[in-house]
């Protein structure tokens, strides 16, 4: 029975949990940072200065951040997948009397490329949502120091809510597509 630990850990992490863990960390770290950066630019009238200069704040500030997270969330997800599987292996070996070889062999047998593919698609979608939520809350920020704090908090909440909704929707889509 213990061997199924590799099935559970491998498939769950590759398909969903790795991307979800990464998204939660990024929402707290990067989503909040985006909101705080853009919020403080609102306070210091830097976004007004871009607007009056005829430079689109969306193109100059939002798009590069969205692109950064679209590209980097999948990379971080692969990193998270590896460490999650390593952690699962550690528990299996030390607490469930499974050998390292058996765990690795079983992982290779049950986890397919398409499992990782689903995880990476999720990661990219989460990346877009977290970046958009962070930037949106930052751009909507008021013009005081406390408003920047509220924007950062709001960015984390919005990112997490959107991530969870998107995760559910993607699960349905993958199920319908029989992936």
């Amino acid at each position, binding site marked *: 029975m213990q061997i199924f630990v590799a099935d559970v850990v491998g498939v769950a992490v590759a398909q969903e949990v790795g991307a979800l863990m990464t998204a939660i960390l990024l929402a707290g770290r990067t989503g909040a940072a985006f909101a705080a950066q853009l919020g403080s*630019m609102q306070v*210091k*009238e830097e976004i*007004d*200065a871009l607007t*009056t*200069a*005829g*430079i689109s704040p969306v193109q100059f500030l939002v798009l590069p951040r969205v692109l950064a997270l679209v590209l980097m969330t999948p990379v971080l997800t692969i990193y998270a997948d590896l460490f999650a599987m390593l952690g699962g292996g550690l528990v299996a070996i030390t607490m469930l009397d499974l050998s390292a070889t058996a765990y690795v062999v079983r992982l290779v047998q049950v986890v397919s490329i398409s499992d990782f593919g689903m995880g990476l698609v999720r990661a990219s979608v989460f990346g877009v949502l977290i970046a958009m939520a962070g930037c949106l809350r930052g751009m909507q920020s008021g013009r005081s120091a406390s408003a920047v704090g509220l924007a950062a908090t709001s960015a984390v909440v919005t990112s997490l809510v959107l991530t969870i909704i998107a995760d559910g929707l993607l699960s349905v889509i993958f199920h319908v597509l029989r992936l």
Partner: protein
Amino acid sequence: MTSPSPVPPMPDAPPRIEVVDLDMAYGGFVIQRNLHFTVRPAEIFVVMGGSGSGKSTLLRLLIGLKAPARGDVFYDGQSLWTADPAEREAMMRRVGVVYQSNALWSSLTLSENVALLLEEFTDLGEQEIRDAAALKLALVGLAGFEDFYPSEVSGGMEKRAALARALALDPEILFLDEPSTGLDPINARLLDDLILDLRDGLGTTVVVVTHDLASIQAIGDNAVFLDSETKTMMAQGHPKALLADPPNPRVKAFLTREPIAR
């Protein structure tokens, strides 16, 4: 080399900026109503008034950042607020703005702050842009500070860098929001001299929002006084004329720093 001949204000020229029947409000809260004035080419026009009188809001409205509750602003006869976004952007391309908080882009060096506008809106090469940015910074006395970030220089230097950035595209009209805020008297005076030089040398039309009385009297060719209690434009004229013959007690109190006895 001879210095350029001064360009005097042109009282008979058609207005560069015309403000017509303008109401300003935040939601239902009216700040000023029935504003009506003109700014002539090469004029230094001062918007003065106490705190909360709507000076900075008026500036935001003049540079297209906030829509009026009523009325319009015309640049050389062209409506700002009925123009489509592309036209409005083209109109704003002729304008340079120095914000109250300087609003330098904090992740860019002083040189990059100036260069960004040149990169976006000119065909100049990389080296030419670097040279032009250095020239603008030298114009405001910041030669040698090109690679400093805004957080690494003093408030006065930041203000001058903001002016250099506002001048990057050689604007026809320059807006300054409380330019002497945070400056010591000497630097405030130097900034006044720089504004006069710009007007005299390049014919730049300057609109200054301020309550710095010394500056108002030193550089203003024309001024309006916005009153926060009556929410109206209480006076218009040359600052020296307004000081010599104030049209009402509130204007007199402001210009002479003597509170009205109650």
